[in-house]
Structure formats: C-alpha cells, structure tokens
C-alpha cells in the first residue's frame, strides 16, 4: 500500500482530477452534482496522498514532459504549497457539500463545471514552479472566478463581475509584463533558477513593481480593493465563500513565493510599503465593515481588513523571518476556513429570511441555531480570540512585532482585533433581538447549516494544532532559516 502511494505522482493527479471532473460535469449536466462531489472528495484524498508523500520523501518535484527546467515546466511542492493545497481541498469540500443543496437543476449544471475548473486552476497554481505557468493558472483562476461571480445574474452581480473581470485582467497583464522582463533579462522562467540569477537592475525593479501591483490588485489589498466588495457581495453565497476564502489567496501565494525566492533579498523598502498598505487595509476595511447595513457587504469588507494582516508580515520578516511567515501562513489558512463559514452562514440567513439587512435579523439564534453558532465561531477566529486559528496567527505576528519593538504594528494588530470584535458583535447582537418587522421564512437544508458550522469549527480547531501544522509547513524550508523559532 505504501509503495503504491509513493509511486503515484499525486501532484499530477491533483491537477488532472478536477480538470477531468469539470469536463465530465460539462458533458453530463444532469449528473453534475454527483460528479462534482465525487471529484472534490477525490481531490481531498489526493492531497492527503501528496502530504504523506512529502512527509516521507521531502520536497515533491515533477519534470513535465521529461524536460527539466528551464526548457520544460516543473511541478514543485513543499510545506507551503501543501498547506495551500490542503486549505483549498478542505474548504472546497465544505463549500461543495453546501452547494449540493444550494444550487438546483440548471444552476447546478452551471456552477459545478466552473467550480471544478477553478479547483484545477488553484491546484495547478499552488504546484507551479514556473513564472509563466503561474500566469496561465492566474488567468484560469481569474476567469473562473469572474464566471462564478456573474452566476447570480441581474444588474448587481453582472456589474460587480464586470468590474472584477477588468481588475483581474489588468492584474494579469501587469504580471505578464513582469514575466517578460525577467525572461528577457535572465533567460529562464523557473523560479529557482531566477532566484540564483536575479540581481538588482532597472528591469528587475520594474518586474517587481509590475508583478506586485498586478498581484496586489488581484489580492485586493487596500487601496486596490475597490472591486472586491461588489463582486463578493453580489455573488451566490457559496461563490462568495470560494472567492473570499480561496481565490484571493491564490494571487497572495504567488506574491509570497516570488518574494521569498526572488525579490525578498533585493530589499529596497518595498516590505515597508506592503506593511503600510496592510495597516491601511486593516483600518479601512474594519471601519467600512462596521458601517455596513447589509450582512454580506460586512463580511466582504472584513475580508479586505483580514488581507491586511497577511501583509503586516512583510516588514516583520526582515529579522524574524520564520515567525512572521508562519504567522502569515496560519492566518491564510484560518481565514480561509473562518471566512468560508461566515459567507455560508450569511447565505443561510439570506435564504431563511430572504434578506440580509443586519438590523432586521430577528432572533436568528432561535430559528437557525447552528448557523448563528457557525457565524459566532468564525467570528472568534476572525477577531483573533483564543482558542482559534486566527488567535495563533495573530499571536505569532505579535510575537514577531514585539521582538523587534515595532509598537506601531503591535497597536495596529490589536486595534484591528478590537474593530473586528465590533462588527462581529454588531451582527450577533441583532441576531439575538427581536426585529421590528417579522417576515416570511424559508426552510434551510440541514446540510447547509452543518457545512458552515463544521468549517467554523475547523477554524477553532486550528487553535489547538499549531505545532503539527507549523512543522508540516516547514517541510522544504520555504521560509528560509531564521534565528527565532516560535
């Protein structure tokens, strides 16, 4: 059994499986739901296969076509890739279970092929070791995300999706320009080779600028977040969950990878700029979330704020590398789980009451106890209260900031948590109280409530799993060697 497990190239399986599943869903729309669920579950199993493989054999590498880089494309997976793949598979499975009841008939036939192709794109992205191949996966991911965002139809969704499409294309093109500059300058598109060859020159600075702006735009870092709230808020609930939990992480992962391997050693104050923008994101996103009167927009602005935390790691990594990057990885993982749970819970509320006005939530706690519980648990992780994944991530971040006496960042991290508490409690408060208007209610299938709850529970559970998860992420030393250990 063990021999069979290590003989299969799980990385390739992770790309081909959702691809074939997506095509099958497209060919046989009546069976889309079953085919989709089976594919996503198989992807979950394959990720465990890859994880087992990496744990035993170390870094995974596969030379596609038998040509090695630089001529061909290599697949590559270390602990960081594995973390992203696992987060995608876990959250994706939760959302799939939810979607099986959410989308009916024709909507299901539209949703499943696109979602499986999105899953293939995400897996391919996390496994890529080639900057041009990353561009192709980025394009694939962006296109699938836009198609999903437009799924709801109607004026708001189409407008939001159009804005999303334009921002996404602009981001990809800027990234591609950077790829062209790097290839022209250094004759390779393999990340590891570029890491060795790159030296400071105008072309490299331009590539850094273009690729960063493109990826920041796609990651929706303040002030380039303008497209996110309308696109995420007007999409169907499972799609909002996919976009907020997974898609923005794809472009962030590329940026992190490029920074760790290629651009980080160049220095030059870009990390300070990222830290400033992250601070802006935390404050602006949280304040906007507090101001919202609609639940979905509140959750969307909360994503804008939480993305800021990922970028606080950049200025801290200079002298506390492993701690700061581990914090970012942990925050990415726990945000994926918690935000997916929050959007799914919001979807339940929306289906139940037919609206998502926060002031009229009307005792959701009594009528949808599991959903309210999911929202509250996810909120605990978003706020960063113990015990939760969000707490571990923010704690590591605080630790990195404290060892360097960065009191400015310490106060931002804490203030962001307080503001998050503000908007989460605002929702929970209204969920307990009687609204002025009572309304017709519609049944919510149990699976949809449980999917949200289990994802939220996962975010809490991460609070107890810090050391195994971090040791798994450390395989292949993605964050380099550092003096401070968590």
């Amino acid at each position, binding site marked *: 059994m063990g021999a069979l497990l290590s003989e299969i190239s799980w990385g390739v399986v992770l790309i081909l499986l959702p691809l074939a599943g997506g*095509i099958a869903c497209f060919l046989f*729309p009546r069976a889309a739901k079953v085919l989709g669920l089976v594919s996503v579950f198989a992807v979950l199993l394959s990720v465990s296969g890859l994880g087992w493989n990496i744990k035993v054999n170390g870094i995974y590498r596969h030379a596609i*076509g038998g040509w090695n880089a630089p*001529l061909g494309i290599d697949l590559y997976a270390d602990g960081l890739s594995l973390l992203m793949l696992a987060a995608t598979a876990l959250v994706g499975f939760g959302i799939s279970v939810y979607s099986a009841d959410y989308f009916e008939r024709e909507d299901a*036939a539209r949703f499943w092929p696109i979602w499986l192709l999105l899953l293939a794109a995400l897996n391919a992205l996390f496994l890529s070791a080639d900057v041009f191949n990353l561009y*192709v996966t980025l394009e694939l991911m962006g*296109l699938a995300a836009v198609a999903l965002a437009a799924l709801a139809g109607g004026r708001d969704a189409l407008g939001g999706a159009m804005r999303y499409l334009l921002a996404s294309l602009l981001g990809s093109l800027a990234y591609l320009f950077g790829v062209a500059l790097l290839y022209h300058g250094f*004759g390779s598109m393999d990340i590891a080779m570029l890491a060795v060859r790159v030296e400071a020159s*105008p072309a490299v600075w331009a590539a850094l600028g273009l690729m960063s702006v493109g990826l920041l735009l796609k990651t929706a870092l303040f002030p380039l977040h303008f497209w996110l709230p309308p696109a995420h808020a007007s999409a169907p609930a499972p799609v909002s969950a996919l976009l907020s939990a997974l898609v923005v992480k794809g472009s962030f992962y590329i940026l992190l990878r490029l920074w760790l391997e290629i651009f980080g050693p160049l220095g030059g104050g870009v990390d300070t700029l990222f830290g400033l923008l992250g601070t802006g994101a935390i404050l602006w996103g949280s304040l906007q979330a507090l101001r919202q009167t609609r639940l979905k927009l509140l959750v969307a602005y909360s994503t804008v704020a939480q993305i800021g935390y990922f970028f606080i790691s950049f200025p801290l990594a200079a002298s506390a590398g492993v701690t700061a990057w581990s914090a970012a990885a942990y925050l990415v993982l726990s945000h994926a789980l918690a935000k997916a749970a929050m959007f799914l819970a919001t979807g339940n509320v929306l289906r139940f009451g037919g609206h998502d006005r926060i002031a009229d939530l009307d005792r959701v706690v009594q009528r949808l106890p599991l959903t309210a519980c999911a929202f509250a648990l996810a909120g605990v992780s978003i706020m960063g209260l113990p015990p939760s994944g969000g707490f571990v991530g923010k704690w590591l971040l605080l630790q990195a900031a404290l060892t360097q006496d960065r009191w400015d960042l310490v106060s931002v991290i804490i203030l962001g948590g307080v503001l998050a508490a503000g908007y989460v409690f605002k929702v929970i408060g209204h969920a307990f109280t009687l609204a002025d208007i009572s309304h017709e209610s519609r049944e919510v299938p149990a699976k949809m409530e449980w999917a949200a709850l289990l994802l939220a529970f996962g975010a809490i559970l991460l609070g107890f799993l810090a050391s195994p998860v971090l040791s798994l992420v450390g395989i292949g030393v993605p964050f380099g060697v550092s003096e401070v250990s968590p």
Partner: protein
Amino acid sequence: MEALTLLHWTFDILLGLGLLWLGWRVLTSPDLFNAIVLFVAFGLLMALAWVRLDAPDIALAEAAIGAGLTGALLLAAFAKLRTVEKNHDIAGQLEKGKLENRSFQWWPATFLLVVAAGLGHTVLSLPHYATGLSAEVSANLKSSGVSNPVTAVLLNFRGYDTLLEMVVLLLALLGVWSISGSALPREAAPGPILDTLSRLLTPVLILVAAYLLWVGAHAPGGAFQAGAVLGAAGVLLLLSGWRLSSHLAGLPLRIILVAGPVAFVAMAVFTMLTGGQFLEYPRAEAGTLILFLETAATLSIGTTLAALFLGERPKNKREYP
C-alpha cells in the same frame, strides 16, 4: 542595400506612428461602431509589425484572432447592445456617459505618463538581444517530433501550458453561456451575395485550416491559427443564418467543444501509465501524437470561437425545459 535599409526604416516608422494614431483613435472615438472598425485595422497593422519583427507565428495569430475574431465578437456585442438600447431606451444614458468619458483628466494622464516613461526607460536599459532559451530549444528540437520550434515549445516542451490554455478557452465559453439569456430570434434570411459567398468560402476556409494544422509541424501555423480560421468559417455560416440542428446542439456539440482538453488529459494519463512523466511523449511517436493533439485542439478552438460569437447556449429543449 543603403536604399533598402532606408526603405525599411521609413516603413517601420510609418507603421509605428500608424499604430499609435489608430490606438488613440480607438480610445477616443465617440462612436462605438467606428471604434470597433478602427480596432480591426489596428490588429491588422499589428500583425504587420509582428512580420517586421520576424515573428510570423504571432503575426498569423494576431491577424486571425486579434483582428478577425475579436473584431467579429465586438461587432456581435455591438449588435446586441443596440437591441438592448432599443428595448430599454438607455440610449440617452449612454450619450451622457460618452460626454463624461471625453473630458480630459489630468491625474490619470500624468500618472500614466510617469509609468510609461519608467517602463520605456527600463525597456531601453535591457540588453538589445537576449538569446533566452532558443539554444536549448534548437538543441532538443530533433527529439521533439516536429521541426517548427514554436510548435515544439507549444505542444511539447511547454505542452502543459497549452493544456491549461485550452481550459481557459473552455472556461470563457462556460462563463458566456452561464450569463447569456435565452436565444434571441435572429432568423433574418441572408441576402443572395452572403449566401453564395458563404457556400463558396466555407469549404475553402476548412481546407485552409487543415493546411495550417498540417504545416504547423515544420513552418508557421498550428492548432491556434487553424482553429481561428475554422472559427471564422463558423462565424460566416452563423452570419448567413445557419444553425446547428437541435439533435446535435446537446451532447455532440459539447463533446467537440471539450475534444481538445480531453485529448490532452487522455494523453497525460496515457504517458503516465506507460511509465513516463506527465505529457512525456515516446520519442519515436512524438510527431504523430502532437498531430493528434493538435487536430483535437483545432476542432475545439474553432467550435468554441464560433460558439462565443453566437453567444447564447444553443437551445436543447430536452435538457433544460
């Protein structure tokens, strides 16, 4: 020789200026229809520029896809916008939007100028000639199964990228189909000229596509160009009022649409099962396998492009009542 160099210079300068002028006109034209026509002209000039840069493969793709099919798609969108305008009387609103767009804004303009200057400086600072990977490509060309380096890169060395690109195309169509409403009745009978022309041209276009597909192994051409020509044949047929019969609009159509990606996935599974790496063709049969992949890809690309032009999902009452 001197005179020839001078002629080349003059031509290139005129070409460059023409491109800039057309680009400016496309962006500032107040009339959408004009802008689309200018955009097609821009694409054709751009193809010429690629020829001048010794990149005939890109020139072919630019002419067929950039100018031809994108132009057709834009015109199709324009035609639909006009019906929407008529139905909802939003022409007035569009008019207002146009006026706002035309006012000159200093901040974006300054910002863009600074960015353009910075990028221009960077590009000028680059070494004039970079070999890139061309040495490695020619060293391995013999074992790739084809003798056209572009095809070797697209289908063999970086065949994985092409696999994903095929999926990009499929996703574009899925996206369009998922938001397009019910098919608009467009049963206008074609005039006699269009009818005759399409009868004459369609077989020729199919033949050209087959030629481009075949020739791609050793000269500029290949699946994307052939697919674009096939797509053009489809567009011509659709314009002259032809529609796929409803028996074929369901599963058979979808099978052709995914033939390219399916061929790639099947090839990937085949290569891995026979003990190779992902998409590692057996050296002896590489040429044949590449031709097989390209044939499937051409069919899918052509059909997808024509389907994108049509816009709506072809009606099939049995599947979606």
